[in-house]
Structures are given as C-alpha cells and as structure tokens.
C-alpha cells in the first residue's frame, strides 16, 4: 500500500487529471447547460435541443456565421500562400534571428495593439486618402496579417526536416524548377501546409478584438455573440459556443495529425 502511494506514476496521473479538470470543467458546464430545457444556469429541468433549434433559425446569427466563414476562408487562403512562401524563403535563404523575430511578432503582440495599429493605418491610408469604407475586406486583411505569422511558423517546422537533395534529384532527372515545386516540394510539405491552414482558419473564426476594431459596420460571428451577451448569457449562446468548441477541437486534432511535430 505504501509502495503504491509512493509510486510517482500515480501522482503524475492525478496531476494530469486535475489540470485537465481545471481546463475543461467550465467548458463541460457550458456544454451541459446548452442542453438544459429551462435555459437557466440555476436548475436542470431536462434534456432538450431547443436552443440549437432556435440558433438554426436565427438569421442574425447565421448571417454573422456566414460572414465569419468567408473571412476565415479567404484570409486562410491568402495567409497560407504567403506564409508558405515566406517559410521557404526564411528557411532556405536566410539565417537571421532578427528577421525571424520580425516575422513572428505580429502573432504574439497583444491583439489590442495590433487592432489599434491596423485601425489607425486603415483610417490614415484607406479611408483618409482613398475614401474606402472599412468592412469585410479590412477584416480579411487584418486576419491575414497575424495568420501569416502562424502559417510561417508551422510550415517551417515541416521544412526543417526537408531533405533538399530531393529537389536536386528532381532537377537532375529533368524537371525544371516549377515542376519540381509542384511535384516534389509542395506534396512533401503539404501536410504541414494544411495543418497551418487549419490553425489559421481556427484563429480567424474566433478572433474578436482585431475584427471588432477593423470591421466597420460588418458583423462577424464573435461580434454578434458579444452583442448578444451584453444583455445576459442566453441559452442560445451556450449552444453556439458548444458548436464552436466542437469545431475547433476537430480542426486542431486534424492539424496535429497532419503535422505531429508542431507544438
């Protein structure tokens, strides 16, 4: 008995359990409440999917969700293309810590700083000089900015194990540079690129601060949720949040499967 109490494996297991509980208990509560008939956090009155049904017919929510998916999809595509090329260039052609830092900073500075910076920049250049109104496009550009950072970092982990001689072998066997990129380089790093895209998509979908500042009158999904929540947490929001949790979880799992080395 004593021996078992002293077994470090048991304590590590208990520790892990506590940490996971700490991380996931609030989310578990949210998920449970989203199925609560009464909708009140104070009393369980029975299982129901009525809040999900009411979300599905709420046009405001659906409209915001559609806008967010458009923003996420477009910004992910652009950021993945630019970020992948940037990763190739940084990994192959440079060895400069300062440059690496410059590329990574937009992803880790506080969102609020990035948001204010982008807003001032947009106001000065686009609305001020060109007379453009903020909207869908400005959120997309803003999301591209920080997503490039994450895409680059993830693709670089993949490139670090890339044997450059397979590109030389391709050239040697008669393929030119373009064919070599299409047939060799891209397919080999593709799992990393897709993983990066999934992360970028996830980040874009639930990004609030930057979107809030740069969206003009456009209402994204997180902004919609925020405006609903100002009048108290409605059971509908529990349902929406549950859907988002599940989708994010699936995307992250998929991304890790594709690129096991990423952190």
């Amino acid at each position, binding site marked *: 008995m004593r021996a078992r109490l002293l077994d470090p494996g048991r304590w590590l297991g208990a520790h892990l359990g506590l940490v996971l509980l700490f991380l996931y208990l609030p989310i578990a509560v949210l998920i449970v409440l989203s199925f609560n008939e009464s909708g009140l956090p104070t009393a369980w009155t029975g299982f129901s999917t009525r809040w999900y049904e009411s979300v599905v017919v709420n046009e405001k929510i659906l409209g915001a969700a559609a806008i967010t998916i458009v923003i996420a999809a477009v910004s992910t595509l652009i950021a993945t293309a630019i970020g992948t090329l940037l990763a190739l260039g940084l990994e192959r052609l440079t060895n400069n810590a300062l440059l690496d830092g410059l590329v990574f900073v937009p992803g880790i500075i506080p969102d609020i700083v990035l948001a204010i910076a982008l807003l001032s920049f947009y106001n000065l250049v686009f609305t001020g000089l060109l007379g453009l109104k903020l909207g869908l496009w400005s959120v997309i550009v803003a999301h591209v900015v920080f997503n490039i950072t994450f895409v680059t970092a993830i693709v670089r982990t993949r490139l670090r194990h890339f044997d450059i001689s397979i590109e030389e072998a391709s050239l*040697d*066997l008669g393929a030119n540079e373009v064919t070599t990129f299409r*047939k060799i380089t891209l397919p080999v790093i593709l799992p990393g690129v897709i993983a990066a895209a999934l992360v970028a998509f996830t980040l874009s979908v639930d990004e609030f601060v930057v979107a809030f500042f740069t969206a003009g009158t456009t209402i994204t999904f997180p902004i919609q949720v925020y405006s609903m929540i100002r009048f108290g947490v409605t059971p509908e929001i529990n349902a929406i949040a549950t859907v988002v949790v599940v989708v994010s979880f699936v995307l992250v799992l998929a991304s890790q499967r594709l690129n096991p080395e990423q952190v």
Partner: protein
Amino acid sequence: MEAHRELIRIEGVTKRFGHLVAVDTVSTTIRENEFFALLGPSGCGKTTLLRLLAGFEAPDAGRLLLDGRDLVGMRPYRRPLNMMFQSYALFPHMTVFDNIAYGLRQERTGRDEIERRVNEVLALVQLGGFGRRRPHQLSGGERQRVALARALVKRPQVLLLDEPLAALDRKLRVEMQLELKRLQHTVGITFLIVTHDQEEALVMADRVAVMDRGRILQVASPDELYEAPGSRFVASFIGESNIFAGRLRIAGDAVTLVGERGTWHVAPAAPGHAGLADGAAAAIVVRPERLRLAPAGARASLEDPGAGGGLVNRVDGVLSDVAYLGSTRKYVVELRDGTRALARVQVGQRGDDLAPGTPVGATWAVEHGVLIADETASPASPGA
C-alpha cells in the same frame, strides 16, 4: 569496355565558397565507359567537383566539357548525366515505380514504354516486384538500389555516384562494390564515383583520381597507385606504407637517400627517380608485405628478398606488436628513433615466428622501395 574515347574533359576548374577554395584549378579527362573514382578525405573537393558536373554548383573558372559540349551555364535538367545521391534522395511521397518513372515522365515518354523500362531497370537491380512499395517500407540496401535504378533508367551518358555505399553496413557494402562493377559492365555507362574509402575505389574503379585540398594529386589505375604512388600523400592515403624520408644523393650510378634514420640505396629504375635532382627532398615507400623481418642477431637474410641477389636496405628496431589478420600477420616494429614500421607476413612463412620484445632487423630489396618526391618536407638546405 575498352573504348578509350574521351568523354568528359575538366579544364582548369576552380570553385570557391567564400574564402575556401573547394576545387582548385583541376584538370583531368574521363574516358567513355570508364569506371572512374574521385578519392580523397572529406573536404578535399571531390563532392563539389561532382556537383559542378551535375550542375548544382557553377564553377568560378574553367570549363566542363561533355562530348565536346561545354556544360557550364546549362541547367541541371538539361544535362545528359544523372546522379545518385548519398542520401539517396528518394521522393518519400511516391512509390518505387513512380520514383523511377519520374525522369522518364519529364521526357514525355509513352506509358507503355515507361512501364517496360521501369520494370527492366527494377529487374536489373534485383528489385522486381517492389514497384508498389514506398521508400519508408524499404531497407537501406533496397533504397540504395532504387536510387541507382532511378538514376540509370534514363540511360545517361554519365552516371554520377556520390558516396553510394557510405550508408550501408560493411557486409552489404562489400557485396555492392562488386555488384556496381558488374552493373557498369552490363549497362555500359560511364560511372563517376566519389568516395573517401580507398578500398571502394581500388576494388571498383578502372582509374582513380586521388584528391587533397581541392587538387588532383594523381590519376592512375589502382595497381599503379599502390605500386607507384606519385607523392607522399598518395602513398600514405592508399593502403599502408612505410615511408623513409631524406635527401636524394646522386653520385654517378649510385643513388642513395640520406635520412636521419640512415642511408638507403635507391633502385636505379625506381619509378619517379627521373624527376628528382641531387639534393631533392624525397622518400622511399615500402609496402608492409615487402618488408622482411629477422631477429637482430641473425645475418640479414640476404638470400630471399632481392630477385637478382641485389642490394638490400635495413632498419633496426624492436618488435612491439603482432596482430593476426587471417592469412597474414601484421608486425609492428618500434624503430630506434621512435617511429614505427609495419610488416605483413604470410602466416606460417619465414619471419612469422617472432614474439613481441624481440630486437629485429627489417629489410627490403632495393627494387621494392618506391622513390617519391616528399612534398611535405620543408625546403631546407640539401644534404641533411
């Protein structure tokens, strides 16, 4: 195989990486259907020379001619040579079949012909039936064969092999040496191999270029390199050798080498003798199997070594180590000046009964000593 037409001509090629001169005004020629080896220690520039030929690097000076056409400036995918990489560089996302077919597909070869030629080359490297596997499902030896097949399938004029056997274990490596040689005969393609392993070069190549610090020191057949090394570096790099250094003294017909350890006779016909003048820094190279050992008390056995009962050279020392090598035994003799000499004696033959600690005399027939210029000697005043 005996066609001696010149295929590759390397003319004064230099390649620098920053301050490092990787290849230093190298010139040589490689003949058609030849198995040619570039041999040297790591960093000697042999791989760079190969990469210059493949087109992955551009020379800073000089010309690289293939069949009279200058390759410099030609993109790698336009050059009629293929390379087998040290890492094999197999495409991890393709099957064995697709790896090998890759080069043919770039030429827009027809589907049926691709099928036929890939299977043909798979059979050639004894990997029939492996077409649908992926590289990660293969052993190291199998991967090596796929890499070889992929480079051969386009029937290049020259096959470049960069340390092709380095990643294999010893047994497989020895097998593959003969296998590569057989294959070269079968396909009749010029093979240019880069290796740091002298055994590999000697076993496989028709001719070997020994490289050191960006330069080619000697180009010769394996026998010639072993029997008549042209420099001290080549003598010590190829096989084991005893090197006795000194200054050459030429007095009429009598040629001697005067060193700190003694004075030795030099055979009048010793290869390399012609190029050296009186007083030149030189060395005598004696291969271990040419050295005879006898207990110091005994008269140096004069009846055996010289073919015509000629002159014999002698050094004295104490036997310090004996190693059994199967058919021969290696004797290490500690010479009086603290240097060592190696002798290799057939097991059971005369001289093979000495125990460590015995004072011995080591002798060699004059004609078995190869005279070479000693490029490592300081240019001090002649006459030690």
